[in-house]
């Protein structure tokens, strides 16, 4: 078992170096540089540009830039090109903003998708099943920002509550209860909007997985033994159907940045996705690189965790 874990960790460390190197060369080889963000500014003289390039090490060869980036990241002195703020505290602040949105959306996805999918599979072909399959197709096919705009229109129009941004400006002196209510309204709508797509996709996976397991021989055996239908479904089938979703925990984390760009943009939510988007617009390489790196670390940690869980649950994998 330890052997298995050590081998996996070592593999992932090598992978991490490759990933960061790929990301680094990819970002630096693409056209566009931080010194060219403002080319029309008459006050930018060639000397200034040379000074900027020297300060950001842009004239050094690529592998030296990579070494500089690793050194600065390790010592915590990495600074943003845009405003010379240290990168790590900046990312941490935005991460704390994104976290409630991410957690609430994840909880919504996992608590809705599983019952929906399982019920649909157990009562296959019924009215509920057909309804959920149809509506999940419909929800997958409509872009998230379209639904979000409709939701903003409805919620603002019917309930008269503001939903844009993380809280209403100028509420600092209101009663704590009103502030809390305000925060909740601002949090709930974006979370639901971010969760809808995930619910639609995940519930279809759960449904097909459950259907596959229900067709297995051991389920038929359990039925043939005369067990109660509930025992068959929840005792024998469910556990096996849910096993593959252990791996999905690991792949949830990249969504923290990738999936949230659009929703944070719509709802003006100052989170990680928007930070990434702003960094791309400003060619802020240290932030793009570091965000990519953090996501890669999180993903690898997640897959490592799910691999270990899998190995614990299923001994066949350990022996490979």
């Amino acid at each position: 078992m330890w052997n298995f874990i050590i081998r996996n960790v070592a593999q992932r460390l090598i992978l991490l170096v490759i990933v960061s190197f790929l990301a680094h060369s990819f970002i630096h080889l693409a056209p566009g540089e931080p010194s060219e963000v403002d080319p029309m500014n008459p006050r930018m003289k060639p000397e200034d540009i040379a000074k900027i390039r020297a300060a950001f090490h842009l004239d050094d060869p690529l592998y030296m830039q990579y070494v500089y980036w690793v050194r600065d990241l390790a010592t915590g002195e990495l600074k943003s090109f845009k405003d010379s703020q240290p990168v790590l505290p900046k990312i941490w602040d935005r991460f704390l903003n994104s976290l409630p949105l991410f957690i609430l959306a994840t909880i919504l996805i996992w608590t809705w998708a599983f019952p929906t999918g399982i019920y649909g599979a157990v009562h296959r072909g019924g009215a509920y099943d057909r309804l959920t399959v149809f509506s999940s197709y419909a929800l997958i096919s409509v872009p998230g920002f379209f639904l979000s705009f409709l939701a903003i229109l409805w919620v603002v129009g019917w309930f008269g509550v503001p939903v844009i941004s993380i809280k209403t400006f100028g509420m600092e002196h209101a009663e704590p209860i009103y502030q809390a209510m305000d925060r909740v309204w601002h949090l709930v709508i974006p979370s639901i909007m971010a969760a809808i797509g995930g619910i639609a996709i995940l519930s279809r996976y759960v449904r097909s997985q459950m259907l596959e397991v229900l067709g297995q021989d051991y389920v038929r055996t359990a039925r043939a033994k005369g067990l109660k239908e509930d025992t068959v479904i929840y005792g024998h089938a469910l556990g096996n159907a849910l096993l593959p979703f252990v791996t999905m925990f690991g792949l949830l984390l990249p969504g923290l940045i990738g999936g949230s760009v659009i929703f944070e943009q719509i709802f003006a939510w100052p989170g990680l996705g928007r930070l990434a988007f702003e960094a791309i617009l400003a060619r802020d390489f240290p932030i793009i690189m570091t965000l990519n790196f953090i996501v890669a670390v999180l993903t690898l940690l997640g897959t490592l965790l799910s691999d270990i869980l899998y190995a614990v649950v299923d001994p066949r994998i350990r022996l490979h």
Partner: protein
Amino acid sequence: MDQAKPNVPRNAGAVNLDAEGLAPPETPWEEFLRIFKKDYQALLGFLVLVLLLITALAGKALTEWWVVFDPQVVRLTDKFLPPLSVPSPDSIPADRPFAGVYLMGTDELGRDVFARMFQGSFVSLSIGFVAVGISLGIGILLGGLSGFYGHVKLWFITVDTLIMRFTDAMMCFPTFFLILTAVALLPPSIYTIMIIIGLFSWMGTARFVRAEFLSIREQDYVTAAKALGIPEGRIIFRHMVPNALAPVFVSATIGVATAILTESGLSFLGFGVPPPYATWGNILSDGKGFVFDAPGYFHSSPGDFYRRSGL
């Protein structure tokens, strides 16, 4: 029988099999048709797909080659008209739409939304199909290589390790963020978007094809083909690929919809297909700026179309 006539043509064996009733009762194509006809859902989906393709081709033909619906005419007198409205009397007669009705209304420049949707259907679908084609090509190639030649040693690592670690590395990036970075940094064009979306979405296909190949390689019919001395290339492309591809194509159909949606997400952030091309994505995201002034326009635009292409 064969011994009696040693110089019979090569396919005589098949004829004999037919005569003795040993040939399969139906060809694979007939079997496919029989199963397909029973499955109403598949039939419906197929009809919708054909309808969409016809719409896309007609959109290309009627807006560019033989201009019936002109998506680029700007009519400032007819801004933000609701669907099924007629042009105002002071508009220029030559610019009036086909049959004198705006089927889906007009946008902020008075362009006919129906004509733009028509043109956009071709652009959107071609983005979807080209991107999926690229990702399928890369995915099948890499997955097939690591599934079939996985055990071959290159220097110190196996082909399988090399390809699958590279796939893992690509999966570590958040896809949409990566596509966004690439599209934002490269010069904007419709081809860049197609290629970038294709280049960054092959990982799932590669893993899938590899798994299929690993299990198919052990099947009896592949062993039989090997024993018959059939060359490796023919085994791979005639025997293994068709069997591995059926499940891959199922995920590819969803891939087309995903690519179209990715493009619309990029359009929303301002990095989509640049004008003058219309796509379902940028028509929709153009609408977002006016959602509070002219909600009717936003509602009536492409949302419904996405639903259909998702099938």
